[in-house]
């Protein structure tokens, strides 16, 4: 949820999962950049997006496959700057995942909370 402590509020939405690694890291890049600009930033993972947050996956895939940094590097870069990660239960169900299978930084929200954050945000960017 927003605290209004930053210079602006950006909410990113990630819908792509492990089948499309080239689309996995960019939301984290942009979120890290925004957080570095003192914006308050959240990324909401829905549809296939929660697949990217699995503890068993984050070190195994990266935006360029086996070349370059793994996804965990880009996730940490964002969360170290205060970017918050959100998922909702139906998206976990869709991917047969439980929150216990995800990395520690993930927060559970629902559709109402997501819509409320979207209304309050300065902008919402979907991938």
């Amino acid at each position, binding site marked *: 949820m927003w605290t209004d402590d930053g*210079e*602006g509020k950006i909410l990113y939405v990630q819908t792509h999962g492990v089948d499309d690694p080239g689309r996995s890291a960019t939301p984290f*890049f*942009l979120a*890290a*950049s925004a*957080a*570095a*600009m*003192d*914006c308050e930033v959240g990324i909401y993972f829905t549809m296939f997006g929660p697949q990217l947050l699995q503890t068993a996956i984050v070190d195994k895939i990266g935006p360029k496959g086996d070349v370059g940094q793994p996804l965990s590097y880009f996730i940490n*870069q964002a969360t170290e*700057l205060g970017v918050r990660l959100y998922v909702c239960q139906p998206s976990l169900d869709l991917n047969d995942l439980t929150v216990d299978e995800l990395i520690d930084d993930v927060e559970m929200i629902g559709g109402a909370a997501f819509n409320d954050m979207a209304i309050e945000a300065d902008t919402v960017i979907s991938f």
Partner: protein
Amino acid sequence: MADAADRILDCTGMACPLPIVKTAKEIKTMEIGEVLELLATDPGVEPDMNAWSRRTKNELLKIEQDGDVYHVFIRRTR
């Protein structure tokens, strides 16, 4: 360089968003009024540092280009 920076941050060879992310982290460890010199080769660094400085309200003193290397001078203002 005419103006001596208090600290130099070498981000040459690093791609976006690392120069911004590292600058943001580094400047928070400096005293208000001190100057950071960022070295970067990412071709987007000039518009990026303009936007970053405007948003974070730190002062972008100047950007000099020396071959492929941009020298970005930023004063921490708050």
